[in-house]
């Protein structure tokens, strides 16, 4: 139990009679990165606000490292670093001044502030911006300052609401590396719209739709769902489906609108070689064969759609 950093139990939030988040429960252990996915308005930000104590849940409880957020908010908040959707920046300060204030308010002791600011700047690539006013920074740099203020006090749990919005591709790569690095010693929760991002950096994934958790599990489960046991086959002179079904391992064949064939096969029996040999010997005119990956988007749509249908 000691390794659990975040415990959310039956979190529910009601806005004017409508449940924006209903009955969301999950746990997070030390060193894990949790990706939080969902369409717009699904309740991602609301859930994050509840975890960070910015919003009181209508029902349920949040515990950070065993400290209850509602009963001991100060102790619990000291363990959290939070970057809201819009980075909370005091524009009239310079980067250094702002980060020093953030460190001080988060209880970093006076003699460690300078070192903490320096470290946060280095981690977020802000060292050259020290003396600049936050107001004059570009959006990407402002986003970085937002991340820097969230990690300045070395919190147990870092919660980032869409951290890579507005960054250029290189910055995104850096921030992803940073999040992965943070995941080593802290727990990280991040919400995002960008699905490949989740695949790259998260250990765990949660998909939330209309306030309900529709998927909660390890990223591997999602990846498996994604890869499936399918091949895409492009043939110039395709034989009838029956012929294809006789090839060892093939379970079903489906013609796709773009002229390709989708071949499903039994788990572990990849019929690629057999298909290529058959194609060559029978002159089917093979021009393409590759594993068929359902995009993460499709999985995502499937999961959120299933929920809507249910």
């Amino acid at each position, binding site marked *: 139990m000691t390794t659990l950093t975040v415990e959310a139990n039956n979190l529910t939030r009601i806005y004017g009679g409508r449940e924006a988040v209903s009955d969301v429960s999950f746990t997070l252990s030390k060193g894990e990165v949790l990706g939080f996915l969902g369409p717009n308005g699904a309740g991602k930000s609301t859930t994050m606000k509840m975890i960070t104590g910015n919003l*009181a849940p209508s029902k349920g409880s949040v515990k950070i490292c065993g400290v209850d957020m509602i009963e001991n908010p100060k102790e619990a*908040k000291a363990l959290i670093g939070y970057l809201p959707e819009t980075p909370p920046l005091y524009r009239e300060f310079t980067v250094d*001044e702002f980060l020093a*204030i953030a460190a*001080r308010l988060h209880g970093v002791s006076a003699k460690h502030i300078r070192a903490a600011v320096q470290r946060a700047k280095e981690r977020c690539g802000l060292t050259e911006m020290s003396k600049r006013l936050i107001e004059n920074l570009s959006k990407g740099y402002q986003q970085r300052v937002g991340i820097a203020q969230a990690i300045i006090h070395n919190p147990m749990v870092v919660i980032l609401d869409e951290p890579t919005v507005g960054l250029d591709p290189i910055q995104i790569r850096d921030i992803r590396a940073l999040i992965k690095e943070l995941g080593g010693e802290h727990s990280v929760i991040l919400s995002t719209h960008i699905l490949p991002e989740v695949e790259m950096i998260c250990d765990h994934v949660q998909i939330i739709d209309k306030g309900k958790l529709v998927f909660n599990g390890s990223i591997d489960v999602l990846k498996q769902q994604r890869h499936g046991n399918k091949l895409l086959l492009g043939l110039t002179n395709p034989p009838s489906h029956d012929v294809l079904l006789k090839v060892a391992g093939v379970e079903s064949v489906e013609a796709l609108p773009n002229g390709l064939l989708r071949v499903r096969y039994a788990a572990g029996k990849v019929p690629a070689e057999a298909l290529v040999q058959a194609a060559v010997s029978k002159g089917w005119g093979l021009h393409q064969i590759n594993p068929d990956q359902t995009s993460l988007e499709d999985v995502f749509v499937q999961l959120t759609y299933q929920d809507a249908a249910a």
Partner: protein
Amino acid sequence: MILKVARKELKSVFASPMGWVILALLQFGFGTYFLNGVNEYFEVMSGAIRPAERTGVTMFIGQSVFGLASFVMLFSVPLLSMRLISEERRSNTLPFLFSAPLSLTEIVLGKFIGLVAFLSILVAMIAVMLCTLNAWADIDFGYLFSNVLGLWLLVASFSALGLYFSSLTAQPVVAAIITFIALFGLLIVDRFLTGDEASVTNYLSLMHHFQPFARGLIDTADITYFLLFIVTFLTLTVRRLDADRLRG
């Protein structure tokens, strides 16, 4: 932790030229009144007035300077207090304070103390300016102290009210206007229903409680009034912010 928030507020006032400009302009105004007061004192007291009706230099100059100060604060406090919370609301920086290990009371008290600390600089400058009279005359420090205390309590009350109205809206200008109207109303409310010394409006009026200080009388009832006034509005502010957390 309260002081850390206060320090942040004070820093943000001086981060832009606004803090300096306000200090300079107001000090210029007070200084002018002070000088005029010194000049006029010699003219008025030079013999035309019977000795029994003469007042001391402290009271003569103090009256004009502190009279101006309480009036000027009516305009400057709303301008300073307006941004305390509404600005944070507008630029979405409240989550920064809410997710830091601070209680709401600490945030509100910190902001209040930050503003009062800034205004105390003004009050202190007035006090020092009047004390310089002591180099040439024997001034009445008791009178001065009572005026400084009164003015300080008055601006602290203004700040508490301003802080509350700032927490109600996301538009600093709206906060400033409402604060100004409310303060103005509270200052002049005793003018409307005069006559009855014990009437409720008299009791509510800020000016009514400030006047004894201006005369040099420190009355615990007036001090209590100002303290209650401050506590009431700070409590209301805490409750307003708490409602944010509860209702979203």
